[in-house]
């Protein structure tokens, strides 16, 4: 359990450092084209080779990491914000309102999310900001359900009833009792949510509906690579591995945290 | 009478991590004669349920088991799963606490009773099976056996569920019935009915009965012989009717903890401290930390089992009674 958390964290921190210090790590520019250098295989000069426009793939991946990671993070922040608020209100207030709010979630859940995203992107245009907002706006339902379930469970728990009986004020009950006890599941969701959002973004970019050139993202490097699959394997391999490693380590981290917050496992 | 159960130097440990073990049972020696009715009394975590399931070698994967258990002179611990089928159900029937959880919720009572008989007795005629099943339900005192037979577990009350469990446990006509806290989750009035039923069946079927319970008074209802377990060890074994017959300080305390309703004292006997950590393998008397009579010797060495009156007691300074 601890091993999973640490492995996940270390890989992630490594990627984050690469993304933040991209300009210091690579001396190339991500958008300067040089047709004379196009489709060069990996070498000491270009360790991940060059793409069809002669740009350094390694550099593009560094900057792509910025895009992919921040799209994932920001989209999840939006989703978490909406979802936590929605779920908490629904669970805390309960009754008819809860019933209506949850039926709305049911409805949204029957519409395949990716179709919804596809539709919205076409309407709004595939800018980075739009992608973040769209992924954020379409993926809050899971967290809303998790938070609602947790709040309901806690609300009906004996320890909330006893807190009321000893006359603790509402703010203490809300912060120290309800929020403190829902943080675990929310954190777990955030981690899994980021990996999900990164996958969605890369999928969209791969289809040309995501981040638009010249901005690099792991998905659109793959997209341009797909036409050169016979000749330039490095365009496919490296960005794919990067996405896989990021998502894998996020999922590892999420799994580890889920176990960590599971009181059943803790008691033993 | 011959011994139907002979347990010798039985030890059971549960591995919980690479360097931690729970010592659930330590050097258990117990002989039970055919037709005897014995209660195994102890608090939760003392190993009494482990003792019950050891008799049919039904222990979780992380268990290590040493020593010897003989049922009708046959060693149980050497048997593989296939050979154990001759013991489980056929020699020893077993019922558990929370009858609702002991029945599979997605099969009907009919299916659950009949499948054992069908597979083990190789009877496939539907009418014969049904007849056997209904008769079993009648035998355990179920009046509307036809309705119960077609029901699913969740449609029955706790008392009925436990009766069904007893019927299933008896379906292969075992010689021994082991009842592990059979009434703990039931109401008092239902508890009394179940105990009545066990008494009746014991006589009718000449069953050797072993009742596992935390309630000494309940044990006295059904059994002559009481075996008291504390922290994985048998501390006293014998014919105990009241606090006067108790020679181990723990047994005596158990009588006084919940005073019965014969005399009112408005005071509860308190055994100080908490139940010991079963992850330790004691080199001294396991009760010495809580015993009001303990002396330096008790805290340093392990007592041997001695005979006091009609009882066997594991204590350096057994009470005279």
């Amino acid at each position: 359990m601890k091993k999973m958390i640490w492995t996940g964290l270390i890989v992630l921190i490594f990627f984050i450092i690469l993304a933040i210090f991209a300009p210091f790590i690579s001396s190339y520019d991500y958008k300067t084209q040089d047709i004379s250098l196009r489709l060069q295989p990996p070498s000491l000069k270009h360790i991940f080779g060059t793409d069809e426009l002669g740009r350094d793939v390694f550099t593009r991946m560094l900057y792509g990491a910025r895009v992919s990671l921040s799209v994932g993070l920001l989209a999840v922040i939006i989703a978490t914000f909406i979802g936590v608020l929605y779920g908490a209100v629904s669970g805390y207030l309960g009754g008819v309102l809860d019933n209506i709010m949850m039926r709305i979630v049911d409805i949204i859940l029957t519409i395949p999310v990716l179709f919804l995203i596809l539709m919205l992107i076409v309407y709004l245009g595939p800018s980075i900001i739009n992608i973040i907002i769209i992924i954020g706006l379409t993926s809050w339902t899971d967290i809303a359900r998790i938070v609602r379930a947790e709040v309901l469970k806690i609300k009906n728990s004996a320890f909330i009833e006893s807190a009321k009986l000893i006359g603790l004020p509402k703010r203490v009950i809300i912060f120290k009792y309800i929020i403190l006890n829902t943080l675990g599941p929310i954190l777990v969701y955030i981690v899994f949510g980021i990996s999900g959002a990164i996958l969605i973004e890369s999928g969209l970019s791969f289809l040309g509906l995501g981040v638009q050139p010249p901005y690099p993202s792991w998905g659109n490097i793959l997209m341009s690579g797909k036409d050169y699959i016979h000749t330039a394997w490095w365009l496919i391999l490296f960005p794919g591995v990067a996405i896989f490693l990021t998502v894998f380590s996020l999922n590892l981290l999420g799994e580890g945290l889920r176990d960590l917050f599971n009181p059943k496992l803790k008691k033993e | 009478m011959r011994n139907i159960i002979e347990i010798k130097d039985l030890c059971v440990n549960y591995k919980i991590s690479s360097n931690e073990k729970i010592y659930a049972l330590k050097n258990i020696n117990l002989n039970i004669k055919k037709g005897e009715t014995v209660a195994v009394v102890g608090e939760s975590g003392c190993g009494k349920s482990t003792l019950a399931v050891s008799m049919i070698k039904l222990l979780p994967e992380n268990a290590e088991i040493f020593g010897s258990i003989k049922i009708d002179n046959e060693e149980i611990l050497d048997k593989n799963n296939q050979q154990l089928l001759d013991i489980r159900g056929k020699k020893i029937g077993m019922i558990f606490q929370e009858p609702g959880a002991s029945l599979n919720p997605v099969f009907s009572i009919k299916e659950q009773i009949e499948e054992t008989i069908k597979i083990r007795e190789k009877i496939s005629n539907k009418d014969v099976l049904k007849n056997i099943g209904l008769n079993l339900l009648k035998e355990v005192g179920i009046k509307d056996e036809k309705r119960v037979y077609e029901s699913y577990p969740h449609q029955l009350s706790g008392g009925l569920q436990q009766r069904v469990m007893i019927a299933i446990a008896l379906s292969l006509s075992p010689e021994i019935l082991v009842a592990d806290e059979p009434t703990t989750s039931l109401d008092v009035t239902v508890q009394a009915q179940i105990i009545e039923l066990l008494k009746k069946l014991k006589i009718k079927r000449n069953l050797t009965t072993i009742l596992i319970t935390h309630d000494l008074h309940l044990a006295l209802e059904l059994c002559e012989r009481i075996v008291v377990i504390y922290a994985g060890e048998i501390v006293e074994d014998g014919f105990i009717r009241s606090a006067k017959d108790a020679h181990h300080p723990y047994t005596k305390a158990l009588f006084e903890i919940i005073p019965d309703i014969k005399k009112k004292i408005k005071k509860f006997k308190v055994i100080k401290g908490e139940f010991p950590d079963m992850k330790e393998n004691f080199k001294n008397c396991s009760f010495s930390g809580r015993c009001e009579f303990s002396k330096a010797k008790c805290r340093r060495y392990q007592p041997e089992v001695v005979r006091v009156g009609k009882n066997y007691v594991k204590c350096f300074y057994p009470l005279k009674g």
Partner: protein
Amino acid sequence: MIKILQVNNLKKYFSIEKIFSEKEKIVKAVDGVSFSIKKGQIAAIVGESGSGKTTLARCIAGIEIPDEGEIFFEGKLLDFSTKEKRRKIQYIFQDTYGSLNPRIKTGDILAEPIRYHFNLSGEKLKEKVKEFLKKVGLNENFIKNYPHELSGGQRQRIVIARALTMEPKLLIADEPVSNLDVSVQAQILQLFLELNLKDKITILIITHDLRIVYNLADYVIVMKDGKIIESGKTDTIFLNPKSDYTKNLLCSIPNSPYKNQK
């Protein structure tokens, strides 16, 4: 003696909406119950599962709102409008593990209500917390533990200590020992006896175990199907039970001396 609690014709019905069946079912959990408890007594409500004993207790503690009837506490209609009034009746849940916030240390669990009700802080607060720990027989090292690090008996003591911090007049305990081992049971019951004797707290205990009642309570209320079957002084009820139901309960006690009289 003065009546601390008076309950008149209390009713509480629940409707169970059965999702898969046709009609609603109404459960009369408490169905017209009247009784009173004197100050300084230990009273017990006894009944089998489904008798409505817990619902009745929850109505008195203000967790459930009764449908009909009235409850008087210290001569006045029950009222929890101020925190002063709230703290006088305390309730101990059957599920002790669930009634403690798993993410708060025991020291804090006890400090919270004291801080809020008595405006204590700093050293004084710490002293007070230790005092209550001592009162329930725990040493002060326990302030650093989380609930899941305690044994069942220790948790029950913390729960009792938390209720005591409110300096209640009436302490209601719902099956306080049913999940505990016999040796721990006795410790907790003895603690209740001492609290009643030394601190003069009136105690209302909900239980299914008549053996406990006999040795603990001064006054007994026997309930069945939401109604009171009989009530009276413990000795009277045990010596001379009037209803068949009570007689049957007494006979059902393991190793019961009533069995031979039947």
